[in-house]
């Protein structure tokens, strides 16, 4: 028996449970309910309603990614710096929420923000008015940042830790001030970490439906929500498949774009 045959069960499994389902999505996207070829599903997407939902998903995910980067980069940098390098407990503590189910974290956020939640109760007991903290885009954005910021910290931290400290010393010896050391040496070398952090935050943020449903209280929809509804509520599988296909192409395109930017940066960063 040849050793390469060992992969056979896996290949069969992948064909059945990864390739065939994705091909079915493509098939459904290009057919109507009777199974005839049509482009109507794709055309229906270019309707102001759906385009505005796509736009909302994109900008929420974009802001979520930017905020995670702004919060996460300094955190990763400080954690990796000499000041806290020996503090393993701190590192574990910051990454611990990552291992907690995201629905539980969202649930925790809900109980803070709700109309009768902790924050509003505190405001009332201090004599202020109740605020509408839940059911809007801000709440969804906050929930996303809360859920995903550890996924930005970890890869940047890893990239900074892997860095050869002698490069930094060399830059210092050659007379670079701390700011220039950071700008010219540390930051460019941490870009691979930033790129994987961005992927790890942007992708779940742009595809989420649970966070928006729970913290947006169903007041507005994101791209993930309409896919979920098309499949589970209105049973419009053809249009749902077209939406899934568009989402997948969007993700592939953004990952490709990011990797391209990364490759360019790395080539230029060396000099």
């Amino acid at each position, binding site marked *: *028996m*040849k*050793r*390469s*045959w*060992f*992969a056979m*069960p*896996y*290949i069969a*499994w*992948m064909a059945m*449970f990864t390739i*065939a*389902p*994705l091909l*079915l*999505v493509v098939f459904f996207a290009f057919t109507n309910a009777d199974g005839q070829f049509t482009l109507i599903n794709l055309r229906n997407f270019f309707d102001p309603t759906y385009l505005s939902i796509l736009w909302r998903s994109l900008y929420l995910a974009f802001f979520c990614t930017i905020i995670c980067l702004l919060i996460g980069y*300094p955190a990763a940098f*400080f954690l990796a*710096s000499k*000041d*806290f390098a020996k503090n*393993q407990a701190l590192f*574990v*503590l*910051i990454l*611990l*929420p990552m*291992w*907690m189910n995201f*629905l*539980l*974290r969202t*649930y*925790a956020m*809900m*109980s*803070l923000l*709700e109309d*009768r*939640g902790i924050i509003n*109760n505190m405001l009332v007991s201090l004599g202020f008015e109740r605020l509408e903290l839940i059911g809007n885009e801000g709440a969804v954005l906050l929930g996303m940042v*809360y859920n995903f*910021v550890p996924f930005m910290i970890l890869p940047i931290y890893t990239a900074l830790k892997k860095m050869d400290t002698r490069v930094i010393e060399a830059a210092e010896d050659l007379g670079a001030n701390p700011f220039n050391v950071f700008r010219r040496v540390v930051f460019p070398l941490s870009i691979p970490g930033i790129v994987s952090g961005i992927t790890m935050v942007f992708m*779940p943020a742009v*595809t989420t*439906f*649970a966070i928006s*449903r*729970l913290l947006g209280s169903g007041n507005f929809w994101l791209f*993930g929500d309409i*896919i*979920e509804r098309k*499949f589970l509520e209105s049973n419009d599988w053809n249009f*749902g*498949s077209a939406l*899934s296909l568009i989402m997948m192409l969007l*993700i*592939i395109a953004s990952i490709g774009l990011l990797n391209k930017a990364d490759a360019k940066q790395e080539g230029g960063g060396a000099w």
Partner: protein
Amino acid sequence: MRKFLRGGYLGLLLTFLYAPIVVMIVLSFNASKSRAKWGGFSLQWYQKLFTDTAILDALWLTLRVALIATVVATILGTLAAIGIHAMKKKRANVLMSVSYLPMTTPDIVTGVSLMLMFVFVFGLVYRVSVAIGHPVQLSLGFGTMLMAHIAFDTPYVLFSVMPKLKQMNVNLYEAALDLGCPPLKAVRKVILPEIMPGVVTGALLSFTMSLDDFVISYFTSTTDNNLSMIIYSAARRGIDPSIYALSTLMFLAVLVLLIIINKRSALENVS
């Protein structure tokens, strides 16, 4: 001073990450159902949790799916890695890139694509069974959820085992064959011990991914709920303090697990 400022920043971040979790833990011991006031210490929500059959069933289902999926995925993935490693470079590269596909596909698309496939196949089964005269109506539940979990777990095992195979000295296996060892025995006695760390990592990854999964389970099972699905539907109904109790227990479980893993890797570093 610098360390103080940096510590302050990390402290703020920790507050942001833990405030909702701490609030949840505190409220899980609150005797009053209202979040507005503290009604005294009580374990009633924990009691309610352990008598709630829906939650206990979901816990049992989650564990069963995670265990079976991990065992199957580990075997499939390890065999696949050994097989692909023995293939010609071109074919191996194609298979590895295809294996990467489920990892870049958004969860929601994986979920709906698997759901489409299961429903499609079940429709065929129904039609054939009616034609034979023994109608069989299959539904999305434990079985389909399990198959979906195996499908998304297996690539993680493959990608954890592959590097170990690449590090291995190729001559060892050949030497065993030359000395008259049958191929299967050589795989078991020579290759397997060398790649064991990768296999264990892959199995652990699979197990945590399975335990934590919401989106794919949500689309591939309608009759059976796992814990994440229970939490999601509870959250949509509004706040229920027994979910706080569940969160507290799950948080503690993750904490203990991480401490054990940390201890284990610390021991490995020493020895």
